[in-house]
């Protein structure tokens, strides 16, 4: 019993990766998955300039060779200016062929920009061209285990207007925003078909476990080499694989909405190092007190995060389910 209790003590060292060994394991997995199981001749990776897609692409290059990896650069007019620059940098540093596809005309054809503007104007009538917007989520508290959302807009002069989103508008904005991830995945599969390649999924463990992805969008892929890795581990791998510092030192960003989001607006307002510790603790049955001690948070807060992680995993389970059939 005492032994078990001892084993339930958390240390951040538990998240330290043997990068050499993990790289060998994952490159073997990718070679086997692409060549033998999927019977494809290479891999397509949508590169955003973030750490996840960069590490995925780097692993594919190690496994398959640079000439068998295609990087797709797919910004749109609301993407952060660094997105294209950094994704190009990744492609160049890996020596892979890249194809640039601006999503703006596709999204325009789908009515994305016009419908989004109309939707925002229904809530904040003064919103117009030149303004920026984002969705901001409420924090979680013991007295409220659900999240609600504000629409935040900023005028060209910097004035901020914030209104709570009713359910119907929230659903409309989510449905429209999901066009971006689904359009990207459509293009990835287009080029996969074109070159007889497989599509690499770039979800990390948090996204995969919690359902922080768009079904048939960024959640799709033929193989998912980093879906078991914590964010801190992906950063470790990124450095080991020799990715440029501009990528390995860059803080995570969602880059979904035109108005940039601060760290406090992601995942319980925690830096990813602390969030990884909470997710590890919750998944491995480690007492909240132990994780709280290691990362300098209150035990009550970690307990609440545990509850939220379990709740979201259950609520979002449908995102990972295959289609349901009456019989097979």
């Amino acid at each position, binding site marked *: 019993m005492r032994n078990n209790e001892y084993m339930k003590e958390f240390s951040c060292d538990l998240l330290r990766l043997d990068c050499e060994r993990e790289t060998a394991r994952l490159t073997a997995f990718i070679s086997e998955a692409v060549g033998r199981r999927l019977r494809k001749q290479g891999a397509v990776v949508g590169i955003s300039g973030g750490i996840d897609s960069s590490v995925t692409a780097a692993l594919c290059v190690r496994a398959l060779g640079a000439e068998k990896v295609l990087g797709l650069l797919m910004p749109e007019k609301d993407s952060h200016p660094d997105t294209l620059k950094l994704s190009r940098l990744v492609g160049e540093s890996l020596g892979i062929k890249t194809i640039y596809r601006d999503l703006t005309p596709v999204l325009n054809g789908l009515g994305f920009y016009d419908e989004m503007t109309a939707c925002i104007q229904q809530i904040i009538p003064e919103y117009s061209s030149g303004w920026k917007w984002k969705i901001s989520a*409420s924090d979680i508290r013991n*007295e409220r*285990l*659900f*999240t*609600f959302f504000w629409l935040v807009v900023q005028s060209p002069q910097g004035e901020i207007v914030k209104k*709570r989103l009713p*359910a119907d508008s*929230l659903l409309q904005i989510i449905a429209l925003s999901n066009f971006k991830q689904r359009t990207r995945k459509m293009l990835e599969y287009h080029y996969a078909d074109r070159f007889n390649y497989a599509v690499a999924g770039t979800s990390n463990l948090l996204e995969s476990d919690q359902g922080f992805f768009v079904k048939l969008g960024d959640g799709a892929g033929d193989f998912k080499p980093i879906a078991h890795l914590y964010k801190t581990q992906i950063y470790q791998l990124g450095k080991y694989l020799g990715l440029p510092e501009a990528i390995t030192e860059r803080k995570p960003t969602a880059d979904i909405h035109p108005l940039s989001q601060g760290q406090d607006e992601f995942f319980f307002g925690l830096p990813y190092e602390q969030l990884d510790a909470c997710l590890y603790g919750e998944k491995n049955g480690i007492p909240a007190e132990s994780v709280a001690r290691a990362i300098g948070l209150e035990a009550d807060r970690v307990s609440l995060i545990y509850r939220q992680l379990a709740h979201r995993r259950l*609520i979002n389970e449908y995102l990972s389910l295959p289609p349901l059939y009456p019989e097979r």
Partner: protein
Amino acid sequence: MVRDEVKKFILEKFLFNCSDQLDDDMSLIETNTVDSVGMLEIVSFIENNFKIKVEDEELTAENLDSINRIARFIERKLEAQAK
């Protein structure tokens, strides 16, 4: 009655009218009957149906996390409006 209207809405919207799955004191969140978007749909229902403005600080489990809690919250708000 307010409670009956709330119950009818929740049954129709989230449970496809399977009334055996719903108790008036049951937590809607803890039983995963309703997620965050569902909670916002309940708020929209309250605001539109009862002509009540629900403030951000009123979005708590105490006010919204069961049929009885929602009904009591609506009744309190209606009483306050009538004064």
